[in-house]
């Protein structure tokens, strides 16, 4: 009772990372013998302590010293909090300082070289030892802080917060700041101020020539126009669908709800492909027009119109999903009150229902706006010469010019727009006080829609739903004909090229198809990332919704902010940051997994928060007053009751990892190629058949995954209370 337990585990981590394990990343992976790195001949394979002792790498002494300072923390006792904090802080500071100061070419900064002279040594990126030691020091620090009374004295909460803050810093804040700093690097003899000016004030970004002449405007205006147009159309369509689904007696409501699953399972360029097959130069419409009227419709689909159409198709389901919640959230008793006050249905709709929905409509608009901004798949497939920020960034990085400064400037502009939308969204959602949020049963029947509104909704929504179905059918049909538009012979050739399986001469199974490699890589990396995403996301959700500590709102804001960073920006930031030490993980699986985890974290957080808001807070408190440690309370009470949310988070993060493209396109390597990137490359080469065949396989896989959770989660009930699985909305790119 009241005895501070020892910090043995964190200290052992720090000590093992510093003394025993190889500090740097090993070129050929870690062998069993290489794990014990205390007496290694090769300095690059040795532990930090051995490098300092035997190889004269003095910069590791502070790290070793931190381990020594932390030694008393192994003993239980409250008074040793300061030692733990000191050891943890010193260790972290020493690791960061040496990592940033010394790179592959000796000192990383000229002024260090000027001060201390030539180092005559160098080091590569941090590996297993460094990572373990960092974790150890981090938890020593949080242990110390908790024992000083922060976080209510709870070491588990302190550790969880430390973990979250640490990962946000390493995998979001640092890369983004590194990328932004690239804007300031001097160029071609220009001083940094002028280089910055040239990059940021580029006519190609801000040009307004299109107002007066028939040329393209700057990409900023293109992006803004496209995002606003897509958001407006998708919101209007989404509202029509939402009203039909919740306020009419429409029979096929269930089928309508299926629409909400589409954006989650569809790889981001399927719609674009479908549109090409319909409206492209050899698309069915063009061919028909040519055959029947001799009219050449040309390539109008490549450009603003096509991208806009594809985005409206892609994002209407998202808007629909957001707006279902909004329409259902309006308390029927308000509308009933209006009706008893002699208002007609139309007047009720105009003066009560619509104003109550306004914040929700604004939110849906902003969600689609952000998705359009971050969208990469549709513009790359359909954009043609119409450039938007995400594609321009891509071409700045991979194109012949390879101008990272320009990519950084474009990404900076994109980041500012995304953050502005994020702030606007916070404002809108923060004010949604009048959508009744109480869980109490607000009885009453929703008022049927006025006739005019109902007719309008059906007139807009039904043709659109039909069109969506046509696009999907066309997109998939393309996988089964030889060459779309020229040779309509049915064939399975595309599938054979992608997924052929042969018997090798020695009798083993040979995955001969060209797509197998990327498919296996994608599945295995997504499978590695999913549990990490779900775990970290639920931990964040639990910390944010259940724990009270100083800085909680700041942490929440930081987390939400990282979610607002578009995928393209993250992709550029990652390659700029992680292809040099101290964290040299470009080209490895680690960077892809990290990207998946931090891009999809919102899924885990949202489903966790949704599920936890249904769990009575006094359940955790009861467990804590019953002598359970916070961790035990989480494990024995909260987690079992959160099972549906855990499964949901797992599956959705898996599915989204498989369909994402915007960030990973920068991060793939020959060894780790992703399915979506493979498909994009086929599309760019004009090989639509194989691309579509691959998309079809992905869609079937995702549908199987989603169906599986419906089976697992849908039936689960606890007592009288059921916890519905929350489908995460938005933030996909």
């Amino acid at each position, binding site marked *: *009772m*009241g005895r501070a337990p020892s910090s043995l585990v964190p200290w052992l981590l720090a000590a093992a990372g510093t003394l025993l394990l190889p500090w740097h990343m090993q070129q050929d992976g870690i062998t069993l013998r290489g794990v014990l790195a205390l007496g290694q001949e090769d300095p690059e394979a040795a532990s930090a302590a051995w490098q300092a002792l035997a190889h004269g790498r003095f910069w590791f002494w502070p790290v070793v010293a931190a381990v020594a300072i932390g030694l008393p923390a192994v003993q239980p006792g409250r008074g040793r909090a300061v030692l733990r904090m000191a050891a943890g802080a010193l260790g972290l500071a020493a690791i960061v300082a040496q990592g940033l100061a010394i790179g592959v070419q000796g000192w990383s900064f000229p002024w260090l070289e000027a001060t201390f002279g030539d180092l005559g040594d160098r080091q590569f990126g941090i590996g297993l030892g460094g990572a373990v030691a960092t974790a150890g020091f981090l938890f020593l620090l949080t242990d110390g802080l908790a024992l000083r*009374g922060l976080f*209510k*004295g*709870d070491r588990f909460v302190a550790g969880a917060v430390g973990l979250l803050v640490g990962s946000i810093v390493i995998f979001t804040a640092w890369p983004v700041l590194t990328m932004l700093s690239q804007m300031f690097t001097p160029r071609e003899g220009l001083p940094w101020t002028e280089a910055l000016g040239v990059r940021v004030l580029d006519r190609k970004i801000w040009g307004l020539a299109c107002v007066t002449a028939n040329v393209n405007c700057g990409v900023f205006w293109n992006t803004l126009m496209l995002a606003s147009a897509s958001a407006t159309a998708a919101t209007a369509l989404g509202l029509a669908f939402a009203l039909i689904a919740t306020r009419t007696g429409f029979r096929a409501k269930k089928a309508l709800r299926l629409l909400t699953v589409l954006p989650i399972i569809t790889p981001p360029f399927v719609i674009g492909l479908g549109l090409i097959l319909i409206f492209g130069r050899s698309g069915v419409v063009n061919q028909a027009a040519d055959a029947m009227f001799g009219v050449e419709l040309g390539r109008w689909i490549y450009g603003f119109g096509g991208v806009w159409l594809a985005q409206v198709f892609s994002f209407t389901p998202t808007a629909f999903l957001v707006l279902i919640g909004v329409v259902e959230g309006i308390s029927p008793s308000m509308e009933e009150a209006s009706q008893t006050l002699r208002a007609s249905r139309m007047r009720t709709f105009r003066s009560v229902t619509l104003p109550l929905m306004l914040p929700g409509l604004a939110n849906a608009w902003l969600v689609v706006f952000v998705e359009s901004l971050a969208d990469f798949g549709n513009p790359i497939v359909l954009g043609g010469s119409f450039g938007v920020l995400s594609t321009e960034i891509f071409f700045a990085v991979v194109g012949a010019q390879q101008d990272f400064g320009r990519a950084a400037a474009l990404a900076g502009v994109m980041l500012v727009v995304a953050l502005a939308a994020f702030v606007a969204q916070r404002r809108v959602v923060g004010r949604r006080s009048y959508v009744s949020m109480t869980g109490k049963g607000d009885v009453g029947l929703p008022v049927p829609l006025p006739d005019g509104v109902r007719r309008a909704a059906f007139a807009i929504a039904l043709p659109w739903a039909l069109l969506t179905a046509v696009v999907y059918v066309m997109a998939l049909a393309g996988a089964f004909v030889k060459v779309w538009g020229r040779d309509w012979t049915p064939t399975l050739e595309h599938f054979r090229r992608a997924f052929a399986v042969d018997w090798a001469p020695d009798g083993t199974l040979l995955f001969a198809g060209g797509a197998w490699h990327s498919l296996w890589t994608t599945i295995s990396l997504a499978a590695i990332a999913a549990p990490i995403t779900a775990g970290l996301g639920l931990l964040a959700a639990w910390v944010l919704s259940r724990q009270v500590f100083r800085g909680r709102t700041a942490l929440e804001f930081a987390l939400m902010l990282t979610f607002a960073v578009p995928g393209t920006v993250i992709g550029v930031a990652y390659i700029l940051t992680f292809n040099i030490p101290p964290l040299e993980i470009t080209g490895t699986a680690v960077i892809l997994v990290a990207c998946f985890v931090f891009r999809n974290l919102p899924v885990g957080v949202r489903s966790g928060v949704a599920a936890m808001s249904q769990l*009575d807070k*006094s*359940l955790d*408190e*009861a*467990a*804590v*007053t*019953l*002598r*359970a*440690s916070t961790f*035990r309370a989480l494990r*024995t*009470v909260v987690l*079992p*009751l959160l099972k549906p949310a855990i499964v949901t988070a797992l599956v959705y993060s898996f599915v989204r990892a498989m369909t994402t493209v915007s960030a990973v396109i920068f991060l793939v390597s020959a060894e780790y190629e992703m399915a979506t990137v493979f498909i994009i490359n086929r599309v760019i080469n004009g090989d639509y058949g194989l691309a579509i065949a691959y998309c079809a396989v992905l869609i079937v896989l995702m549908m199987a995954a989603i169906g599986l959770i419906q089976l697992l989660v849908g039936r689960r009930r*606890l*007592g*009288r*209370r059921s916890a519905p699985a929350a489908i995460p909305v938005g933030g996909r790119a």
Partner: protein
Amino acid sequence: MKAGKTGAEVRLQGVAKRYGQVTAVKPLDLVIEGGTLVTLLGPSGCGKTTLLRMIAGLEQASEGQVFIGGEDVTLRSAGERNVSMVFQSYALFPHMSVLDNVAYGLVSSGQRKRDAHQRAETALETVGLKGFGGRLPSELSGGQQQRVAVARALVLEPDVLLFDEPLSNLDARLRRSMREEIRALQQRLGLTVVYVTHDQAEALAVSDRIVVMRNAGIAQAGTPEELYARPGSVFVATFMGEANHLRGRIERVADGVATVALDALRIELPDRGLPPGEADLVARPEALIVGDAGGPGLPGRILRAIYMGSHAEAHVETPVGEVFVIGPRALARRAPGSAVSLTFGTEGVVLVQP
């Protein structure tokens, strides 16, 4: 569940709680003697639940110290204090059987599962739920769930047992019998209990002492009788049951007895340290006696009289304002408008701070 072991004393010294600009509990001192049941009573938002949660360790005091059994536990978390709590919602773990729920705290403190289950069975027996261990909480009635919550808290033999509005989810009849059970259990086991409620009848029925709270501070603390018969303020008087608030004048004070003028009537009351001059007093409805007109006392007129079965109630207009009277059944026979005379009994009439 050893009888005879007396619970620990709880002492709060200058304890306060602030959330940013908002003060939930002003700095206050409070001693809860070992083995007694003390209620924190007050309207919603008065800080009583926050105070309870600070004793439990679910909230940390912004300032001041909390002692349990003489030990300073201010910086300890809930799990490190030897306290147990019964929650308003009961907070039974819905995915565990009743037995697992009751044994949860024992297993958490490191007992072997078999021993824990044995003791949990005993605890269930204590609250009259023998044989219900295998059920899920959702398969029990509200009252039974309440008992499981009590058993789960009791089985840890806590120094202090805390109740947060434990009966508010039960119907009126069940509430009555449950509060008697809780009181009987507390007295039999000699537990220290802190009990939060907003229901004054419940507080009067179960408490050794009552702490009336208002605006994040203590308005008055005392035995049920003290608070009912000698409230210190108009707020406490009206919160602890029906009371007539009257304005009078202290004409003189001698040997601790004040002579108070109410219109033409003079009554003598303990002065309670008040100087001569304008004064507030409260009178319980049953302390007022309605007599025939012309007798000694204030002249009055019946506004309405109501027959209530066991007694009668009447509203009477007097020169010092309208008053509410509870009297014998015969009172109901007085017709509205009839003239009466109103005298004051010796108990239930006190001078109060304004």
